């Protein structure tokens, strides 16, 4: 223990560096705008009642309101009726900062819709990636055919191509097909994952040949073997791949930003964050951070729930 203290020190420093932005994000999502600007209030802020200036601006009592309210405030002149009405509006528009931030997150933009979009897009991508990668990996790992090594070489080569290098041709292709601003544009470019093929191929190499021969003797076709024998034994590896795939595409800002230009119905969660970027009336950091918290929560919850399987999958030791 005493000799290992420096390891822990390094790990703690690393953890602080990784966790600091999350700390800021969650903390900001609790605080009022004033507290954020002044940098005070600790982690939770003071949670004092605050008044939403926009709410007030929208509910300024007019002539008609005063006339309508006259019956409630009998024997008062217009000015005092207006003052009473203003006080009522302020009471209605005042709330705790945390409620303000999170309600803004969901009301200012259709965040639920964005989240559903995110789920649909990431799950479709992962599903199609698996449908492509599993048979391809099986063929590369277990079947002997002419040019197999060359094909595997191409797979490795494709791993080296950065997404951003081919973004423009991909975009032009999609645009010519008239697919920009569709779900297809968000999903189709990612359906063939060479990383997935590579990962599953490496895993399938460890599956004993006898198991596949036994399946053949039992009367299975090659595709049946993929779905009925290889897939069930590859669940840990597939989970590892699922982490990479889902995390990458859930958090992706770059590609949705390119192919979804106008239609807000197609926004994925990260695009939703843009709704709170500073316009003329200043940035809404509180609601923005609340949105960010809502976006990352599903991933963190999923990770905590499946932590064991995830780590098993990453180390690929789940077999046997």
């Amino acid at each position: 223990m005493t000799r290992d203290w420096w390891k822990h020190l390094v790990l703690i420093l690393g953890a602080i560096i990784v966790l600091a932005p999350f700390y800021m994000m969650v903390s900001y999502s609790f605080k009022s705008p004033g507290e954020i600007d002044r940098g005070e209030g600790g982690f939770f802020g003071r949670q004092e009642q605050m008044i939403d200036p926009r709410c007030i601006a929208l509910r300024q009592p007019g002539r008609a309101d005063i006339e309508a309210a006259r019956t409630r405030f009998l024997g008062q002149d217009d000015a005092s009726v207006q003052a009473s009405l203003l006080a009522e509006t302020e009471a209605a528009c005042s709330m705790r900062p945390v409620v303000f931030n999170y309600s803004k997150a969901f009301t200012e933009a259709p965040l639920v819709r964005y989240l559903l979009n995110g789920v649909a897009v990431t799950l479709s991508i992962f599903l199609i990636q698996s449908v492509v990668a599993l048979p391809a990996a099986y063929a590369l790992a277990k079947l002997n055919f002419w040019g197999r090594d060359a094909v595997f070489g191409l797979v490795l080569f494709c791993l080296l191509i950065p997404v951003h290098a081919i973004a423009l041709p991909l975009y032009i292709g999609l645009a010519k097909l008239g697919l920009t601003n569709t779900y297809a544009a968000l999903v189709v470019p990612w359906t063939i994952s060479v990383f997935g093929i590579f990962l599953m191929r490496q895993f399938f190499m460890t599956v004993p040949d006898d198991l596949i021969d036994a399946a053949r003797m039992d009367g299975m076709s090659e595709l049946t073997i993929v779905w009925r024998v290889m897939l069930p034994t590859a669940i840990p590896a597939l989970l590892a791949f699922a982490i990479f795939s889902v995390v990458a595409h859930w958090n992706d800002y770059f590609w949705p930003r390119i192919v979804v230009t106008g239609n807000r119905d197609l926004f994925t969660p990260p695009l939703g964050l843009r709704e709170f970027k500073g316009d003329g009336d200043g940035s809404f950091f509180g609601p923005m951070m609340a949105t960010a918290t809502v976006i990352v929560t599903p991933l963190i919850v999923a990770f905590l729930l499946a932590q064991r399987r995830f780590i098993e999958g990453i180390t690929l030791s789940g077999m046997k």
Partner: protein
Amino acid sequence: MSDLHIASVTKHFGETSVLKGVTLDVKDGEFISLVGPSGCGKSTLLRIIAGLETPTSGTIAIGGAEVTQLRAADRNLSMVFQSYALYPHLTVAENIAVPLQMRQMTALQRLPVLGGILPGARTHKDDIAQAVRHAAEMLEIAALLDRKPGQLSGGQRQRVALGRALVRDPAAFLLDEPLSNLDAKLRVQTRAEIAELHRRLKATFIYVTHDQVEAMTMSDRIAVMMGGEILQCAAPDVIYEDPDDIRVAEFIGSPKINVLPLERNGSALMLFDQVLNSHLSTESPKVMQMGLRPEALQLTQSKPHLTGRVVHLENLGSEVFAQVALDSNGSRVTLRAMPAQRHRLGLGAQVGLSFDLSAAIIFDAGGARLRHVEGAVTCAPEVA
């Protein structure tokens, strides 16, 4: 169930030739062992019969129909693998049911949810469950049907693998060293059970093993393979007593057969300057080898053929094996003696050995059997 014909099958992996023209006929209901040292091509031959490998040349026929180009799935053969190769994600019952599901149900019926509501699925499922139960009872694994393979011992997995093979009615059973992952005691027990299973099913069994004891105890016939060829295919007692080739004689039998050099001097047959027989035809080769089983050697005090010193002793209780370093050339021979003779076999003791020439098996320098020499030696009266 049907007979099996393998006609001049060869197999090359790149430059290396694994099978060099193997021809073998297996009769319906026969238990044949393919036995040989590792790398002799016996597993490759079995995989070619199974359809898991295609031969470079030659043909395979099952029941008169040629199947050389047929997929493994369409050959109606069952195979038991050395590693058992059970599906780790399925229970024992599901494992045994797989071959039936694949053959009796359509792809639609096999679908997880939809399959259950299709017409006929119910009766299919009941039939399969019935067959699985029957197979499990035959192998005494009915209590394990709900377990996963990971929860079973080696012997139990072995039985499940057997169950998966015999649940349908295949033309032949192919077994690839099925006992080699079991411990010694279980191996003896399972050996007897497989032999009994063969008698009960009256099916064709092709059994690959490198263990000659398994081959000797279970088979109707043994095919001894070496270097990609079948050296001899015959009943176990013939293989043991009447081998065609010195490699067969050396491979079968434990401890190994003793091989001593023979020479022909004129018409005299010589063993270490000692005339064994003098009625040899002068056409016989000059240099020969003589194989003597350990039980063919006897301890003797008068007129020993061989003398030597005991250098190693193995007492098995019912018998004693002694290694004797010969005085003539220092080579070692193994002698099987009765426990009663042990007092004469102390380490370092000088002993004399004799043998009956009719028990000797004579080969030429290349290892081929010389039956005519043996005939001449044993028929003519010895005059030495």
